């Protein structure tokens, strides 16, 4: 069985000359389909840079990166945009919802932007996801009127909208209280178990990491454990 994601010898350098900073130093990692993985490491270890590259939002300076057998280093911006839309979901630390849109509109966005309109099917899928996140009563709420935990659950629903194979979560519970954090993690675990979606969760929180079946530790730009 081939891996879902494979990165080999990843190097990422920011800046040039004397100001050059090498964040990733030949990092290699493989993610199998259906994994629930925690990405651990101190600040500045390269976790966020790795997630950004895995999310096709940035290209590595060197090394290989493929997902579902597609070479993502060679792909152009248009191809990467479509690939990201179809196969990758994101959950950010600060939810990063569109503030002028309702919960449902935020969740339906990834499908609507690809299809050019908000179809009935997209709205139905969005409602189902929000109901599953316990937000059935908040579907048409402007996101500004939701609590931090609710916003993060909307963000999880949005990440799942296009049924991606991989969801990248960068400190998804970092801005939540313990109860809300546990609620979000419970939802992630449930979806991972029920739908086989692969999650890679960057976190500093050992308790959150312990909820994941696999832990990857990054230090000084390489996988250390």
């Amino acid at each position, binding site marked *: 069985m081939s891996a879902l994601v494979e990165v080999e010898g990843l190097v990422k350098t920011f800046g040039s000359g004397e100001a050059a900073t090498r964040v990733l130093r030949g990092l290699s990692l493989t993610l199998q389909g259906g994994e629930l993985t925690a990405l651990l490491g101190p600040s500045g270890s390269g976790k966020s840079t790795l997630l*950004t590259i895995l999310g096709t939002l940035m290209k590595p300076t060197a090394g290989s990166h493929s997902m579902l057998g597609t070479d993502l280093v060679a792909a152009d911006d248009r191809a990467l*945009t479509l690939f990201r839309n*179809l196969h990758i979901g994101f959950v950010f630390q600060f939810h990063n919802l*569109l503030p002028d849109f309702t919960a449902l509109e935020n969740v339906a966005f990834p499908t609507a*932007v690809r299809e050019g309109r908000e179809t009935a099917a997209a709205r139905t899928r969005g409602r189902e996801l929000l109901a599953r996140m316990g937000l059935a009563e908040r579907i048409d709420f402007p996101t500004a009127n939701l609590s931090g935990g609710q916003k993060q659950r909307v963000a999880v629903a949005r990440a799942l909208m296009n049924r991606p194979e991989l969801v990248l979560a960068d400190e998804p519970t970092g801005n939540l209280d313990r109860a809300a954090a546990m609620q979000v993690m419970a939802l992630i675990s449930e979806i991972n178990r029920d739908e086989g979606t692969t999650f890679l969760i960057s976190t500093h929180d050992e308790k959150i990491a312990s909820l994941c079946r696999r832990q990857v530790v990054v230090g000084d730009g390489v996988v250390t454990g």
Partner: protein
Amino acid sequence: MLYALKIAIRYLTASKAQTALLVLGVAVGVFIFVFMSALIGGLADFILSRTVGDISHVTIKAEDAEPAILISPEGHVLAVTEKGRMRTATLAEAATWIPLIEAVRGVVAVSPQITGAGFLTRGAQVAQVSVTGLEPGRESAILNLDGYMVEGAARLGSGLVVLGQRLADDLSLGLGQTLRLQSSGGVSTMLTLSGIFQTGNGMIDSSSVFVSLPTARTLFAMPQGVTRIEIKLADLNAADATALRIRGLTGLDAVPWTDGAEQLKEALNAQAQTGYFLKSFALITIVIGVASALLLSTYRRRPEIGIMRAMGAGRGFVVVVFVTQGALIGLLGGLMGAGLGYLALLPFPSREAFRPGTLPMDITQGSYGLAITLTVLGAILASILPARAAARVDPVTAISQ
């Protein structure tokens, strides 16, 4: 496209006060555009109607015989025939041409005339006058005699004469009085004053007299034909083309009013150029206003643009969102400005009712459609730069802001 439109509308409605101010700014620019169009257009029409409204727009004159020289076989000049001051040439076939000319598109009136010089005598007083013989029933075809009458009627019949107020004053003439009119050819006839007009043109009011065509035939010994045919058009600006058409149709030398009116045309062109400049400045203001507002919006929404890009929105989609915002602002501002312009022009008198001291605004020349179209196009152009800047936003940097 539909989804980009939805997002563009949402962005505009999310900042209602900012959008309202922006639309209002565009509307003011369009208002100025419409107002200037109506003023410049109205002014041009006003000047034209006051200068050439009462003259022939296309004139066909009988051509005098060219000077002739009779030379002997030895090369000696035997006789020379020079052009005389008296008009002798006639348009003998005028009756044939008139129906053809009347059928030409844009022709609203045709007036066959016999013109010449004469002397008006009342007792011991004599005045040199310009005599025009008009066809009864077509007295007001070119010069609106009916509209300028201050006493009596413009209707010309056998033995009747109509003349200007100043001439009547100079000769102390009153309606119903008899006077003698002698042509330059020496033929004289007694006429009764049936009407006095005042055009406001000193030359016409002090030296022009109008008689019926049959009376003019007697005075100028012209049993048939006319000396000139004056033609009035629905559109003054079509004079050159219509004259050309009539020339082709009849072979006669049809001369448009624009021949010899270079100074007037230059003045009107200069006025039109001024209008173009003012309208261009209004459009430039709109473009700068929309561009700066959208650039600001782009900067403010950088994190959202980053999120959209992360969620799979392509650069093209981002461009369409911001260009659509520009187009919507242009459309709303254009409609509002054109509407306000129309309402502001309503109280001004119509073109026919212009009076000295009032602004000669012409509500029909507001160029409303053009103003809206140019505004939308200008706003779209203005939004391209901010839209491209938005599309270049790096999602990683934007999301982390």
